[in-house]
């Protein structure tokens, strides 16, 4: 009866292989060993500070108010009064225009930024030497329909601006330093990263929840995710958005103001012809003046009061010595 004994050499080989595998398993286990169970709260590693696109301030040239029926002429004058677009946009720079494209409605409803305004501001930017003008927003209705029905898409195309539709990969979860609401929240980050200057193009509208929707509320369109929950503390989110993004310039279009049934409106009777165009480096001041177009005082808008307390701007727009002008001519 012969045994099929294993040779010593084979035995050692087998033992070595087994030993190595066992040791490798043990080493891997030791390396990955974690005795503490995972914590309940998520630690954020995506903290950002303010995204500052502003240019140095020039005394007496912070805010301008131009009266006139034609958007294109009033906005040109308004920007001219502040030093022209060359003050804000340097040659070779990329610019982001952030209009209100919230709803898929035609321009005559005035629930969104007027395409004429987009067209003119784009022209001004290119005239100042901008390399590329981008337009972005995260609308409430379907994005593509919004850009098309508001005719902002065609205005952009006619003037060489590129629309950045809010794709999934354009959003990034961000935590704003010192914020309570913008913590690990999806923000439309990619367009902001691409550019050197950011110009807000807002309109003046009545709003049930925030009382009014103007240049500060306009940045709501930078939020992604399930942002409707922020309506539970609308003033805080508006203020935090102003803490997150310091724009180069805001243009507040008060040519046709939505005085009722905002922010969607829908009827001519909701509009008032105010023929006012505001350009401002201080969006708190812009909104403070814009409030008067809705027969409101800055104190009626809690977010303005909060923003002023945090040093984000002033509600006393008179102290900025705004420059006034009047232009005729439609267009």
């Amino acid at each position, binding site marked *: 009866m012969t045994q099929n004994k294993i040779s010593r050499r084979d035995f050692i080989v*087998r033992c070595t292989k*087994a030993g190595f595998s*066992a040791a490798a398993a*043990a080493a891997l286990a030791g390396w990955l060993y974690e*005795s503490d169970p995972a914590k309940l709260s998520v630690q954020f590693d995506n903290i950002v500070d303010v995204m500052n696109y502003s240019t140095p301030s020039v005394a007496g040239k912070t805010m301008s108010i131009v009266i006139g029926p034609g958007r294109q002429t009033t906005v040109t004058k308004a920007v001219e009064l502040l030093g022209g677009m060359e003050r804000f946009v340097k040659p070779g720079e990329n610019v982001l225009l952030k209009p209100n494209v919230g709803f898929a409605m035609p321009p005559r409803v005035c629930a969104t930024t007027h395409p004429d305004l987009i067209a003119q501001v784009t022209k001004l930017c290119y005239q100042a030497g901008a390399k590329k003008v981008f337009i972005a927003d995260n609308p409430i209705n379907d994005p593509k329909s919004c850009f098309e029905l508001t005719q902002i898409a065609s205005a952009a195309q006619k003037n060489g601006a590129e629309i950045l539709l809010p794709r999934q990969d354009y959003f990034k979860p961000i935590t704003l330093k010192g914020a309570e*609401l913008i913590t690990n929240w999806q923000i439309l980050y990619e367009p902001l990263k691409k550019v050197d200057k950011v110009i807000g193009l807002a309109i003046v509208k009545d709003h049930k929840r925030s009382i009014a929707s103007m240049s500060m509320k306009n940045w709501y369109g930078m939020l992604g995710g399930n942002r409707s*929950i922020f309506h539970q*503390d609308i003033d805080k989110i508006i203020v935090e958005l102003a803490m997150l993004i310091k724009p180069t310039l805001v243009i507040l279009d008060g040519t046709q103001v939505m005085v009722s049934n905002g922010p969607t409106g829908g009827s001519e009777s909701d509009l008032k012809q105010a023929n006012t165009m505001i350009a401002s480096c201080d969006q708190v001041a812009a909104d403070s003046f814009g409030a008067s177009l809705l027969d409101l005082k800055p104190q009626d808008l809690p977010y303005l009061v909060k923003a002023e307390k945090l040093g984000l701007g002033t509600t006393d727009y008179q102290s900025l010595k705004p420059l006034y002008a009047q232009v005729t001519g439609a267009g």
Partner: protein
Amino acid sequence: MKLTTARRISQVFFFALFIWLCAVTTVGEKFWQQRGWSVNFFLNLDPLGAIGTVLSTHKLYAPLLWSLITIILTILIGRFFCGLVCPFGALHQFVSHFAHGKKTAKLISLHKYHKAQNIKYYILIILLVIAGLGGSSSLMIGLLDPIPLFTRSVNLLILPIIGTSTKITAINRFYQTSLLTLTVFLTFVLLNFYKPRFFCLFICPLGALFGLINRFAILRINRNLSNCTNCKLCNSHCQGSCEPAETIKLSECLVCFNCLDDCKDNAVDFNTAKSETIQVSPDLSRRGFIAAAFTGLLTLPALRLAGASYKDSNLIRPPGALPENEFIKRCLKCGQCMRLCPTNVIQPAGLEAGLENLWTPVMNNRIGSSGCQLNCVACGYICPTAAIRPLTLAEKLGKGDFGTKGPVKIGTAFVDRSKCLPWAYGIPCLVCQENCPVSPKAIYTQPDDDKTLLRPYVDPQRCIGCGICQHECPVGSKGAIIVTPDGQSRENKFFL
């Protein structure tokens, strides 16, 4: 003493231990209750749980380190776990023994190796790929890993049935999704009538894992060709269908030692000898491997495509559950939390939130004795992978060091004014307010317009979502005060 005798004793020991540990998993200090019994003994020894969580979380949670023993021993002596320890395997072996006759010729053909035995390797690959799929991975191992599977079947099916029918337990326990649990369990047990240890041979991913790592085993089954008379008797009781009479498939050998007993010529032994007739690796083809990996890559995204995710279902997790995407990377679906929960409020989810969430713990406030007790942290205490974090009472209640953080909230209660008795019918009640356990209460009252009765209101800042109010509400169906997952403290949402 024969090795088979020792093996049988070992199987009986571990099977009895398993059932005992499941049975004592109830809150209390008597010897038949939790005390310090290591009720996660088998789950901790199960290397598939460890490897799965390592792939999904990139960390090895401390208690799972015990499985290293299993792995090292398997590397050294083969699939001893399958043959001597695994209680599910012991069950299958026992059933198979009674399911088939004793005629030798029939037995030999019954235990023939079948190529489909390599399916379990593909199942293992699919499950590991799903677990390792980067940031959005999911631990689906618990669905088929025998230890969680058997633990769940015993916890959520066998023990409650025994408890209810023999009246051992004072109160009947209920577990939803029972039909699914029964079907899965019974199917595998009854399949033994078709082929002995069907589950172990064709499906078990744990066995597959062992089959992949036992190739360097120092001790193994050997057939001495010079003694062998080719009578094929050693195949007649081979549990792993690894055919010691022909080319022994080492990856399939379950270390049951039956072939040693059956051989009349002392040709089969379990030793270090080098056998000429041995195939060390399993029958895996490269093509099969790729196909399995591909299936794994597609499966998880496919499941999530349906959109029936956790977010949209009304799933409320137990207190201490990690944020959902971390939770789903760790939950073994073992049912321990459901078994231990003193009020029976933790239930296994069904398919309402997709296959991913099947058998994961959710709260059903209308089942059980009371909703989630305020001063109880049992579920986290027992979770083998800390998918439910083991909270201290201070952390759960937001006291002491956790004072600024506040209590753990698992949801918020909403009064359905169309059904609530004082609101809808002017009938006085307020059972919800009475039973709200937090102090100050999260349910307050205001008189109605006639000042004749008081109506309940919920303060969302104080409500922790424990569901005791929903449980006590006398209105039928879901009750008139309903807890939803809004405002959970583990998700970074703001519900003001």
